[in-house]
């Protein structure tokens, strides 16, 4: 199939652990010169981690890399750059105040610190690169004014300028228009023909099919297959991606589904999501599936008042409400467990009990003064109920494991006794054992009459828990699948962007 002695880069047994959780296990992969190689897989399957290891952003816990049969240690992005490996990030990083031309060369200038920089030449080269890419970007203008697509192009130009042998593109087409995508493909093919290797990470299977020579499928941190693209059909790839057997998470008991608790009508925030209309009933768990960046989190944040929608209506228990801040949302009985725990969830250095009681100011301090007794009792009850493992309630929450931190956040919101609960990727970065506990809890909460909106990228999770699964793609709802009919294939097909509904995220 492949010719091992000609491999540009060989990975052997690459594994990566974060906080004791293995997110990548024993990946072997050979990348050939002059090929475009697709990495596909669900969110969290490990493809981005793998790419970052190649680019020196992360260091593998185990395993080795060799470049042209020479063992290499890619310890930092700078080393990677020197070895000719460039990672183009999903969201381009740049120096917004500097000109495009400078962004192309900065960090690669090998001249003496005080030697004159040959701007004329650099500008000319940059212009030539842009001409090569077929984009009309004024290289003397600062990056700040550029669209995401143009910034992406600059990133690609940068990798060309550094004469990289291996260019890793992490979902490069997500923000691009079809025309820009076409340009990108032309360029990618030309680079391949020059003998460079390109790793192409994408969720868009038709793009993978159109562009890539080979495809490697990741699932749950493992490489499950590497095949010529031509040998696989779309449904083959999807099957490989989600191929794990459906585990017995079927915790959702038939709870009594009641009145509509949360109803959205034509909720729109330009650039993020459009015309979102949905309803969640009491006792119902509604799943919201889709790919990262599809706008699911933005909808959740709009409902909760963190970044309110520009237009559209929100009804809670049949009443039209105005939610401009989380405080309003909480007052209406909403709760929101955010996706990014470290950034928007925990108070890292504060005690667990303070974290748990953060949202129930009035209940722990009935007369303005915090009652230590009440605080401790609420925290203790929650710890017992959710089986949070800790050494002491006074421990900083940063000392707990991810799963227990997440339980504490959930506990915080349960204490507010919400009627509507929005969970955004509640089981991300959590051990498999704790996950099961979470599923039980979510089921119980619904059984208790709460309306639950569950955002998840894990298909089995959605299938196991939800009464209905809504799917978003590029800012719009693309499917509403009842529990009986829901399959992973169906969800995935609705989630994968089609060129037919382009133009929303761009």
């Amino acid at each position, binding site marked *: 199939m492949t010719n091992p002695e000609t491999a540009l880069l060989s990975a052997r047994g690459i594994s*990566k652990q*974060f*906080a*004791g959780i293995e*997110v990548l296990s024993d990946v072997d992969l050979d990348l050939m010169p002059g090929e475009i190689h697709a990495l596909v897989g669900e*969110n*969290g399957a*490990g493809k*981005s*981690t793998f790419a*970052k290891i190649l680019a020196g952003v*992360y260091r593998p816990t185990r395993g080795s890399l060799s470049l042209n049969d020479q063992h290499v240690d890619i310890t930092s992005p700078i080393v990677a750059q020197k070895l000719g490996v460039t990672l183009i*990030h*999903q*969201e381009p990083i740049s120096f917004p105040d500097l000109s495009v031309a400078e962004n192309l060369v900065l960090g690669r200038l090998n001249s003496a610190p005080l030697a004159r920089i040959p701007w004329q030449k650099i500008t000319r080269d940059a212009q030539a690169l842009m001409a090569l890419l077929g984009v009309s970007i004024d290289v003397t203008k600062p990056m700040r004014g550029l669209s995401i697509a143009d910034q992406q192009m600059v990133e690609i130009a940068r990798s060309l300028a550094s004469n990289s042998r291996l260019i890793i593109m*992490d979902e490069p087409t997500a923000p691009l228009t079809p025309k820009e995508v076409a340009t990108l493909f032309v360029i990618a093919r030309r680079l391949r023909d020059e003998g460079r290797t390109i790793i192409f990470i994408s969720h868009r299977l038709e793009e993978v099919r159109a562009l890539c020579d080979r495809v490697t499928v990741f699932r749950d941190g493992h490489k499950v297959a590497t095949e010529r693209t031509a040998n696989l059909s779309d449904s083959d790839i999807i099957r490989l991606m989600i191929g794990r057997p459906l585990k017995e998470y079927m915790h959702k008991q038939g709870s009594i589904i009641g009145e509509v608790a949360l109803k959205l009508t034509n909720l729109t925030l330009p650039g993020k999501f459009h015309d979102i209309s949905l309803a969640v009933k009491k006792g119902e768990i509604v799943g919201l599936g889709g790919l*990262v960046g599809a706008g699911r989190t933005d909808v959740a944040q709009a409902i909760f008042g963190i970044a309110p929608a520009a237009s559209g209506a929100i009804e809670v228990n049949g009443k039209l409400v105005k939610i401009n*801040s*989380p*405080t309003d*949302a*909480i007052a209406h009985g909403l709760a*929101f467990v*955010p*996706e*990014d*725990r*470290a*950034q*928007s*969830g*925990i*108070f*890292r*250095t*504060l005690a667990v009990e*303070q974290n748990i009681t*953060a*949202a129930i*100011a*009035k209940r722990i*301090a009935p007369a*303005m*003064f*915090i009652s230590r007794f009440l605080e401790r009792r609420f925290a203790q009850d929650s710890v017992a109920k959710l089986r949070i*493992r*800790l*050494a*002491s309630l006074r*421990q*900083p929450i*940063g*000392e*707990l*494991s*991810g799963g*227990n931190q997440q339980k504490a956040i959930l506990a*915080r919101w349960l204490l507010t006794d919400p009627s509507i609960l929005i969970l955004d990727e509640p089981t*991300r*970065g959590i051990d498999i054992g704790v996950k099961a506990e979470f599923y039980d809890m979510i089921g119980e909460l619904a059984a208790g009459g709460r309306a639950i909106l569950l955002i998840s990228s894990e298909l089995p999770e959605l299938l196991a828990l939800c009464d209905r699964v809504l799917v978003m793609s590029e800012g719009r709802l693309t499917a509403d699948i009842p529990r009986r009919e829901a399959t992973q294939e169906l969800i995935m097909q609705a989630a994968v962007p089609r060129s037919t509904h382009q133009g929303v995220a761009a």
Partner: protein
Amino acid sequence: MSNVENPALAPSREVAAPRPAWRIFLIRPETMTLALLILGVFAGSQLSEFFLDINYILKSFTLYAEFAIVALVLTMVIIAGEIDLSAASNMALSACVFAYAQQTGAPLPISIAIGLSAGLFMGLFNAFIIIGLKLPSIIVTIGTLTLYRGLAQIIAGDKSIRVPESFIGINNVFIGGIPAPVIIFIILSIVLGLVLGTTIFGRQIYLIGTNEVAARHAGVRSKSIKIILFATLGLTSAFAGLLTASRLGSVRYDLGLGGELQMVLMAMLGGTYIFGGRGTILGTFLAAWLLVIVTTGMIVANWLPAYQLCVLGVLLIISIIATNFIYSRTER
């Protein structure tokens, strides 16, 4: 970058034994402050035989009590993740406005009200620029520091404005042998200590300073709280300005000049974390005494003021290095 693989997850330590209580107690910035305070008292007594006299120390404290009072509120502002360097200028401008008002014939209570409102207004002005326009507080308050002082200079010119006799001498009022400004400082310490340590308002200040995004998610009205803090700081600064006016019997534009350093120093020395989220009123309370002890000790030993400048500068740097170090050690 994709957030799928979050490297910031903490290692699982929940099974580890909790730290012994004595370590939690000992490895705290406040303990360091207390130790320095004891050391300072000892060093002072060695430097000069005139130093160890409770009345003298209390009297000396009145000279710094105004800054110390403001430093208490400043501590809360810093814990909330902001800073205000304009407080000392605010003191001067409020005092000048007050003195100007009573000079133009306004009755004393009205003048006091005008002076206090001026301070409150300045605090709100800071809050408006910092929170309303989302500009960094540190550079904004460097601007207002210059502006407020400059306005005071315009109002008062280079002359000192007398304040009425009935208003003079708060520092000569003794309650139980303790000068009134010291009493005010102690009472305010207790009140603010309670507010910060036991009320939901105080708790929310810590939440904001630790993680403002998470605090907003948890329904904390972070903007309102910060505005309240800046306004309180403004009002307190004005109050401190009036105290100074009462102590001096006259007001000049250079009242409290350079006080911002002393205030920041008190907060930092007390273990308030410059990046917010940590610190206590007790720490600042102890640090205020420490600063007075150190300065007074040097002055009464007839040390050149040069050495005081050096010691203050070095203390500031050491205190942030030490607090950063202690906090990084105890975070996990």
